[in-house]
């Protein structure tokens, strides 16, 4: 209950500076942690959550909270990261103008995200979901005088809006079919057969937009125009995970439909691979991380898809657990990597990795913490990323046992492990190792920035292992329907599985490859950009598979062109017709006028005189004589009344 208060508190910090925001988020964190401990230690809630109903919104639609394992984990995670990043911002945003705006938007965002993950009905989730989207829009465009930032903000809002609209329709369909927005009530209802696939896919559409999955991924790399703290918080650690959260929340719908399962799995697996390929060639440090985020979220979606498939086949929902596990781990190490890159950018003053290098000696804390992040994301045990990513791949492989499509996705996933390790270490070597290429002196960042880095590095290292230390393993906390096995069994299972060694091997070879190319420079990277075989691929990747280009063309040529055609049609055709009619009226009046004056007097009797007189007044009205027009109106009204009367009499009234 106290949580609603913290949402409201977060919202009220409009005019305040950093202390207000940090204070209110810290309060949210305290409440969330209390809930987390309460739920996990008593375990009383299980998979089915507890509802707190606040008030009725409109006729029978309630606003309330759903507190269950999933939501408490995300509440704690989100408020923790928001707090860390708000503290980091104190150093990072020190010299910026418009800080009140920044902190107010961060606070509103926190409220939006907390509201999204704790919503007990889909409508409420949608509302907070859009509040997050708004904050994302505002924060990407924080430096709004930069044309790129303004354009990126618009792109982010529009592309996610497409997903949001699908989400909206999905929610509406659910409401019409089940008569409620409430998630638990919907869980109890059964959908009619013809909707069983389409509804989860509509909801998934929202997730695809928000989590920047293929084909709606194009906004996220551009969103890097915002401050790095924003990229870390919203576009890596929290908001983009809302899509995963939504997919997990609607897991009970997805698992019912094999087609929906396949779509989720395929989009997840393909996006993981597809985004990783683009990360290979990016030179902007933040864009590498952005592609990496898209790719890692793809893993989570793959985990959910494969997990749903196995549930559909009657197995345990391990994929669900691992996806959320990866969500948590990724939040830590990706926030770490982004904040680290922010620290570097802060010091060097550029995003371009080609202008960095040799920063290791000057920025010890940053370089070490980022190394931890890179190892973690690459998937080397015992760093956190290993546990969850390996779990997801294993689930995908298991699903691949009975479904060749999942087997193919698994192959993509394994290849992505290699690429992930490669591009991460490519980034690390280009930034921190080798010769110094940046002009000017470089200093380590202030404490308010490095301390959050160290805290995050701690979690990037241990968040995987820690879950074992607490007793039951992650699977006993976050699960769908039933908890999973104990720690020991899990450990034995992981290390007795040959697949584990395959993925570790892929990760190591990726690191090695990056080491050879970017540290030793035994093989020049030019080989890939200039050799005939790979030149084309390189060009394709640099141009992001021309998807942005295609979308822009669609927006500019087709939508814009269509708008122009509509406008032309409106002005020339519709309005042209209207003006034509009135011109015709004027001409007719003029003709009458001429007829009246010059025509044959004897043939025109009194009645026609009246009509012609009216016509003349009509003509005058066209040039602004309103009195004349009013007189014509009176005649017209009489005529209309008479006509109506005739019509009614004929009709037999």
């Amino acid at each position, binding site marked *: 209950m106290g949580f609603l208060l913290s949402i409201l508190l977060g919202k009220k910090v409009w005019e305040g500076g950093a202390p207000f925001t940090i204070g209110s988020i810290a309060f949210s964190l305290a409440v969330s942690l209390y809930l987390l401990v309460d739920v996990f230690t008593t375990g009383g809630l299980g998979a089915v959550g507890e509802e707190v109903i606040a008030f009725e919104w409109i006729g029978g639609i309630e606003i309330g909270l759903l507190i269950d394992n999933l939501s408490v984990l995300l509440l704690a995670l989100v408020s923790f990261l928001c707090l860390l990043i708000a503290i980091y911002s104190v150093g990072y945003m020190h010299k910026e103008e418009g800080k009140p705006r920044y902190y107010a938007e961060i606070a509103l965002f926190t409220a939006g995200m907390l509201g999204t993950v704790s919503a007990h009905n889909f409508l409420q989730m949608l509302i907070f979901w859009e509040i997050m989207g708004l904050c994302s829009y505002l924060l990407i465009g924080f430096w709004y005088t930069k044309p790129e*930032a303004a354009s990126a903000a618009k792109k982010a809002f529009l592309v996610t809006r497409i997903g949001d609209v699908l989400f909206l*329709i999905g929610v509406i369909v659910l409401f019409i079919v089940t008569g409620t927005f409430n998630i638990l009530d919907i869980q109890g209802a059964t959908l009619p057969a013809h909707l069983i696939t389409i509804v989860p896919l509509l909801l998934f559409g929202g997730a695809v937009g928000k989590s920047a999955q293929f084909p709606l991924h194009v906004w996220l790399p551009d969103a890097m125009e915002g401050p790095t703290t924003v990229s870390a918080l919203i576009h890596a650690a929290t908001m983009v995970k809302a899509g995963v959260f939504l997919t997990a929340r609607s897991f009970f719908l997805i698992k019912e439909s094999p087609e929906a399962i396949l779509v989720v799995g395929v989009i997840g697996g393909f996006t993981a691979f597809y985004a990783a390929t683009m990360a290979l060639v990016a030179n902007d440090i933040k864009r590498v991380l952005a592609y990496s985020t898209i790719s890692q979220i793809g893993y989570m979606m793959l985990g959910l898809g494969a997990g749903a498939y196995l549930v559909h086949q009657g197995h345990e929902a391990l994929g669900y657990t691992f996806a959320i596990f990866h969500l948590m781990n990724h939040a830590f190490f990706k926030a770490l990597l982004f904040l680290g890159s922010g620290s570097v950018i802060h010091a060097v003053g550029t995003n371009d990795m080609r202008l960095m290098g040799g920063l290791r000696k000057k920025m010890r804390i940053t370089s070490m913490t980022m190394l931890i992040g890179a190892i973690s994301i690459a998937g080397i045990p015992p760093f956190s990323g290993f546990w969850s990513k390996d779990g997801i791949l294993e689930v995908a492989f298991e699903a691949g046992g009975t479904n060749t499509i999942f087997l193919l996705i698994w192959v993509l996933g394994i290849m992505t492990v290699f690429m992930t390790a490669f591009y991460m270490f490519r980034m690390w070597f280009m930034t921190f190792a080798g010769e110094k290429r940046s002009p000017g002196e470089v200093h380590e960042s202030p404490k308010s920035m490095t301390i959050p880095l160290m805290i995050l590095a701690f979690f990037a290292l241990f968040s995987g292992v820690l879950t074992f230390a607490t007793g039951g393993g992650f699977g006993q906390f976050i699960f769908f329907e039933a908890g999973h096995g104990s720690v020991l069994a899990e450990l034995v299972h992981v290390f007795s599985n040959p697949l584990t060694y395959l993925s570790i091997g892929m990760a190591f070879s990726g690191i090695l490859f990056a080491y050879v190319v970017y540290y030793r420079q035994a093989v020049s990277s030019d080989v890939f950009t200039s050799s005939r075989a790979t030149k084309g691929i390189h060009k394709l990747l640099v141009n992001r598979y021309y998807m942005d280009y295609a979308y822009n063309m669609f927006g500019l040529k087709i939508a814009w062109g269509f708008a122009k055609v509509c406008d032309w049609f409106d002005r020339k055709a*519709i309005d042209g017709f209207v003006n034509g009619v009135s011109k015709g009226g004027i001409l007719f009046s003029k003709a009458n006028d001429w007829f009246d004056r010059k025509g044959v007097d004897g043939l025109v009797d009194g009645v026609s005189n009246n009509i012609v007189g009216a016509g003349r007044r009509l003509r005058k009205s066209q040039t602004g004589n309103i009195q004349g027009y009013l007189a014509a109106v009176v005649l017209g009204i009489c005529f209309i009344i008479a006509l109506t009367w005739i019509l009614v009499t004929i009709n037999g009234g």
Partner: protein
Amino acid sequence: MALDFHIISLILLIPAIGSVIVYLLPLKNTGTKIVTTAISLIPLILSFILLLGVISPYVELGQTGDFYALESADWIPQFDIHYTVGVDALSAILVFLATLLVTLAIVFSWNERHRHREFNALLLFMEVTIVGVFVSLDNFLFFLFWEAGLVPMYFMIAVWGGPNKRYAAIKFFLYTQAASLLVLAGIFAFYFYGGTFSMITLMETNPMAASAQNLLFVALLFGFGTKLPMVPVHTWLPDAHVEAPTAGSVLLAGVMLKLGGYGLIRFNVQMLPDVADWAFILVGVIGVFSMVYGAFVCLAQDDLKRMIAFSSISHMGIVMLGISAWGIGGSEWALAGAIFQMFAHGLISAALFMIAGSIGHNVGTRNISELGGIAPKAPRTSGFMMVAFLASLGLPGLVGFVAEFTVFIGTYEVFGWWIFIPIISVVVTAAYYLFAMQRAIFGPFNEKIKKLHDMKWFEVAPLSVLSILFAVFGILPFLLMNSIYNWVVALG
């Protein structure tokens, strides 16, 4: 608390007398403004009480049948014409909207010095006619106010308008006059069938032959639809808006368009219960076409006011869609959403036109291509623009979303997957607003702008009121929605 006085008559009478007083008092601009504002506050307060009486159980207004605060007197007994006024949830909300926007428009035009006494008197007179339409429960009285309303708006455009004002004013007058004739025909058709001008009797007895209802429905659809306006009888609106002074635009978009929506619901929905489904399908098709077509036309506009004018066409299409879904499938959500949309659009479009007018006045141009990067120099203008644009594109938490969402619920309920067509307009709407903002207020400052000053207090105050209301009714829609919904349910 029971209120037993002629509250509606007072709402009509006070601005009517006030308009004469303002016209006659030889005051300077500021003095006139203060007097006019003070006068306009009285009907605003009264209509707020009226609204409370309808939506809250704690204020009693004396109810007769379906209507509150009913007053009736013989007027022209030979033809059974009465002075009958009263409100229900539908009209009480719109009366409140009208009186609110009149007050805000008066304050917003604080600096209008050209023939200021006539200007303010005209605004008050306009209030009488608009409120009169909403409260009339006698068809003859209704039409009287309906027609009278054209006159002040005509002069508003023709005297205080922009460079092409004569064309726009004449076009406005002729267009809506032609539509009025259809309405008049409808009113007499009702009279010849039912032998009465009383709306209440007509609603209760349904005297008209079923076969005639379809014909009349279409006639009234075009009569009220022109005012709404619906495509293809909409072209008067962009011109009228572009030329009208800001206060005129605010009232035109904020309340005059609602006259059309109100007419559609009061006449087509309530008095013609036996029409065939195809008639409502026609409403839906035109509504959806207006939504999508209007949105696309917006995308191509350069003049902010013209863009907002087309966005009104697009958004009033939602009202038609809601009516259609109710008419065909009886979806209560759809009609409730349509009514809520009228209220929401009234608030939002008023703010939009205030902003466009203020930019035109303060920067010297309303063309998006001639603006650019004004946010740092005009933060208040830009801030309000953002709030109003976001409200208009249906951001959840603001008032527009509630209306759109409820109409879309009804749309799916009745039309199923056809919902994908109107929903296109949601995306296009976001596109044109964001694109406009990107070019107008963000990016580097356009050095070609010579003069630029931010909003003054009299511009900030009304926009603040509206922005707060966006949030209040966006977050707490049940304040109105519950009454609207119950009203729709009672409709059957």
